[in-house]
């Protein structure tokens, strides 16, 4: 520290007061410690993690009941987190959770071709009524197989509601875990997918379904 520094005029005094003592590293560490304490104190309603996959970065969200949301890269992280804040609770924090570790591991195994079904507790609260019935029917389509929208609608109890089934699948809060990519139009086309048609084709190819 030089003498000139100490005899600063008002503008450089303000500049000195603005100089940041905390480094970005330090913020990251403080944030990690905060997340651990917040979870231990039961203050986190939705713990989430970013998870690298062949499709891009997934957002995984869990509650005390199980996995509540899988966000695909095409959805955008901000939109996924906003949706969770609005529909589950604003207490959404990137934080550690055993359920997240299990989901990460099983997804890695799935993408490596070493897992054909997921064994994870799911929190279904983001799908109600008929939509939930459609998703539960979809969850029973085996690995590497496909079904039509009409078939899924029928298994959910309303054979005529294939359009509503399509809408339920388009809003699937748990893609991959509830394999909506296995549902195709009866025309034989690929159909829509929340994560984009490319991602759907890729998943079906991974499973040897097409």
């Amino acid at each position, binding site marked *: 520290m030089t003498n000139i520094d100490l005899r600063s005029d008002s503008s450089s005094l303000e500049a000195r*007061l603005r100089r940041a003592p905390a480094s*970005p590293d330090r913020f990251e560490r*403080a944030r990690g410690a905060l997340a651990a304490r917040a979870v231990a104190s039961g203050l986190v309603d939705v713990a989430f993690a970013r998870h690298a996959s062949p499709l891009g970065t997934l957002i995984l969200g869990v509650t005390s009941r199980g996995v509540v949301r899988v966000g695909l890269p095409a959805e955008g992280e901000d939109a996924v987190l*906003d949706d969770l804040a*609005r529909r589950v609770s604003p207490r959404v924090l990137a934080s550690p959770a055993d359920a997240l570790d299990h989901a990460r591991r099983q997804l890695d195994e799935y993408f490596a071709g070493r897992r054909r079904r997921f064994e994870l507790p799911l929190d279904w609260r983001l799908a*109600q009524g008929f939509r939930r019935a459609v998703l539960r029917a979809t969850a029973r389509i085996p690995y590497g197989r496909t079904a039509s929208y009409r078939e899924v609608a029928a298994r959910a109890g309303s054979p005529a509601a294939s359009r509503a089934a399509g809408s339920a699948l388009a809003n699937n809060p748990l893609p991959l875990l509830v394999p909506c990519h296995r549902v195709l139009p009866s025309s034989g086309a690929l159909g829509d997918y929340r994560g984009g048609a490319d991602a759907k084709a890729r998943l079906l190819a991974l499973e040897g379904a097409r």
Partner: protein
Amino acid sequence: MVDAGTGLPPFERVVLRHGPALLRYCAAEVGPERADDCFQETLLAALRAYAELRDRRAIRAWLFAIAARKAIDLHRERARAPRPEPDLEALGAVGAAPEPDPALWSRVRALPPKQRQAVTLRFQADLSHREIARVLGISEAAARRNVFEALARLRAELRR
């Protein structure tokens, strides 16, 4: 359709948007060795009360008002049980960066409380005078005056 209905952003975004300034504020208010405590206590209290927050446009002032109370608690604690001077090497090991301008900040911490808080909120957390007023429960004019008086005093002391 489920809807928590609060219109609040995910808390994660509050941490990312205001956390770095909060940590700087804490370091300036309570010193670098207790900054993490202040940061965590503030955000835990904020998370606890978050769902009841009514005015989502005033999140920053609300957060720093909590921080100002936590900083006062930590000051009191320190007054009751004075700690030995921090071991700078040990602090380095846990990642507490030393302040860039310790001579200046020790003077800031010796200011009268309102002036100290006002100047810290203004320059370390980058709050507006209106937000400072809200945090400290004073008028905007008083907030402006406290910042001004703090600067005048620091300038006079540094000239000495």
